């Protein structure tokens, strides 16, 4: 092959042209499909969640005008069905609970929701171990990839983040689902059941999973008087709740861990949880229209192993029961599954 300047110019032009042309086509496909639903311009599909990693999918839900209320938390709150919450509260809920979500991730999503909904009707937050960490125990992210750019203000800048393998994969998946080539997998209101069908429940198998775990101890440094402990995650939560208007109904609920996870009375872990409860209760007392509810207590739910798939995750009928209990608790009504940690104030 002759090596003339022209032949090398052709080589270079072909290389650059291929790279630029193919990159442009791929990027255009991704941004027009808009797999995470946040871009200003895209194909006018009827959209739903296509991404198994809720951290990518939920910012679009948090911004959506279809909802006026939201539930936040981890997988211990994911099974609360918005349709049950809607009926119980007379609201339009989105369930924004994410598997293994750290306090940072949850507050980032709260910020997105609150920017789009300055005066939501109801906000519920499932309190579990991640919220009761003390200084030094706070982790920013979980094992799931967290796209911080999706949580910032200004949707136009998102275009620069969509040239990657993950976005291409999700754009292909979204295109297939939105055009009917593949069935819809995830929900349109944040709810997707991650547990098997109720008919597949196997109590013996569940019991095995339940006993794979032990007492949950919030991580972090703690010395001296518990009153002096620094509950760093709760401080982040308080900041968000204080930013909400008084007319927003705010409910903080300790999730119903199975009894194997609940700290036995008198233990060091129980002392941490006890102080965390006091802090949450104090927060609820201090912030208008806020109530703190405790499902993490011995009782008909937590003591009954047949109500769980594993020690963290209760079954769907229990989730529906908790959703209704939350509404009752927010009205100040007593219940067998929970106890109120704070007084209920009316607005």
């Amino acid at each position, binding site marked *: 092959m002759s090596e003339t*300047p022209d032949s090398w110019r052709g*080589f*270079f032009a072909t*290389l650059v042209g*291929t790279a630029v042309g193919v990159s442009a086509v791929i990027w255009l496909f991704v941004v027009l499909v808009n797999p995470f639903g946040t871009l200003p311009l895209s194909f006018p599909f009827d959209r739903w969640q296509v991404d198994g990693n809720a951290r990518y999918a939920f910012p679009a839900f948090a911004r959506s005008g279809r909802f006026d209320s939201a539930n936040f938390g981890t997988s211990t709150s994911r099974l609360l069905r918005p349709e049950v919450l809607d009926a119980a509260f007379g609201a339009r809920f989105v369930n924004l609970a994410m598997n293994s979500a750290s306090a940072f991730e949850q507050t980032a999503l709260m910020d997105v929701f609150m920017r789009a909904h300055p005066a939501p009707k109801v906000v519920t937050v499932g309190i579990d171990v991640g919220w009761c960490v003390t200084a030094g125990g706070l982790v920013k992210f979980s094992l799931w990839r967290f796209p911080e750019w999706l949580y910032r203000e200004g949707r136009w800048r998102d275009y620069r983040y969509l040239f*990657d393998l993950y976005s291409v994969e999700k754009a292909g998946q979204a295109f297939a689902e939105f055009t009917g080539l593949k069935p819809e997998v995830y929900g349109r209101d944040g709810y997707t059941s991650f547990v098997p069908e109720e008919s597949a429940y196997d109590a013996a198998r569940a019991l095995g999973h339940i006993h794979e775990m032990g007492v949950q101890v919030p991580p972090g440094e703690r010395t001296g008087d518990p009153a002096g402990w620094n509950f760093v995650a709760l401080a982040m939560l308080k900041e968000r709740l204080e930013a909400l208007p008084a007319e927003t109904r705010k409910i903080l609920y300790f999730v119903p861990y199975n009894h194997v996870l609940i700290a036995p009375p008198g233990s060091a872990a129980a002392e941490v949880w006890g102080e965390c409860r006091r802090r949450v209760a104090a927060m609820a007392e201090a912030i208008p229209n806020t109530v703190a509810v405790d499902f993490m207590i011995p009782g008909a739910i937590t003591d009954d192993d047949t109500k769980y798939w594993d020690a963290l995750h209760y079954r769907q009928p229990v989730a529906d029961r908790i959703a209704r209990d939350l509404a009752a608790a927010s009205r100040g009504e007593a219940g067998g599954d929970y106890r109120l940690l704070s007084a209920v104030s009316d607005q």
Partner: protein
Amino acid sequence: MLFNSQVFIFGFLPIVLGGYYALAAHRAWRQGFVVLASLVFYGWWDIRFLPLLVGLTLANWLIAQAYGRWRVGAIPVAGVVLNLAVLALFKYADFFGANIAAAFGQDWSPWRLILPLGISFFVFQKISYLVDLKRGDRHIYGFLDFCMFVTFFPQLIAGPLVRHNEIIGQFDLPPRRPAMWANLSRGATLFIIGVAKKVALADTLAMIVDPLFAKASDVSLNAAEAYAAAGGYTLQIYFDFSGYSDMAIGLALMFGLSLPLNFNAPYRAVSIRDFWRRWHMTLSRFLRDYLYIPLGGNRCSPPRQLVNLLLTMFLGGLWHGANWTFVCWGGLHGAALAVNHAWTDRGLRLPRVAAWAVTLAFVTCGWVLFRAPDFRTAGDVLGSMIGARGLGSVRLENPWILAAGAAVALLGPTSQEAALGRLRPARWVAVPAGLALVALLLMIGGRLQTAFIYFQF
């Protein structure tokens, strides 16, 4: 910004390359433009790094000017001292402070100075110039030439360690010369190979290596895990560093400038001496020319030669990082070089395959010490490799990458042979190269995420 980042490949590089060739007819303009672009490139990481780079460049240029005018030998010596002092301050202050304090039973409050990126490289580059002046080199360069020599962004952060007389003469060459398109094509191809080594191989290997070394810090590995960790890291560090060098050399060639080669299939070496002729070649020759030979090199008694080798390699190890593990790693290589010299001086020979295997085994064990955070972890991993904790088994993410990496490292042409030697201007090569770049750019943006098996009810 990193070479293997989208902002560099989509933004910085096209703009700077375009500007450079647009200003090609004006030497001062195109050089000034590249120097400014290089400062932007450097400041992109942390603007606080810039004053040191600019100040040290200016100081060294003034020192050279002063020497050119007065020819007093103390001037370049003072310059070398200044450069070493800066390096010692930013890179080694806490290391030396902590060790001296510990020797006297005292505590050391770390200064925690920010470590300016690439300081080890650009300080050595300046030292080599000043030492050359002291040795009689007559080159006193103009301001722009000197600035471009020091700051030229392809080699600024991690080399190759370019000597002044290798590159400054090339600044005279007009970029729009007949070889321009060949340089752009070969440079771009070598750059893509470098990105592939870094992104597809090294970063994928890191997914195997990092968890294993993290685990080794807490608990002992079994033999299978230890070999995966050691073998994986042996490949990872090679692809990471040689990939970076390929990118640097390829980028420079796109500007019409040739940089010295830095790697030449080091894992095919059949002795430790051979290894150091193939691994980080520009550092090896720096240590040889500016440390080993001035110490007496091998033109002295065998015991003195041993001391020279050990001292050179100890300092070479320390250059890699302020930690005793690096120093020890360097010392081990120094000792191995001494044994190698003694062995060959006596006319002894191993069969080629055995020599290769022994060399690679030594290098691999050395990398364990280099990678481990402390001696305990290194000893633990090495102990596991000799079976102290049973054979065991290991589950790896992407285990195929080990075989693929080994094949690339041990077989086939080197990247520079492929891009600078064998490459022909065929479009059937250009299209896959362009597609490979797209795939790598997508990978740089973010990989696929394995769906966690979060619940196994």
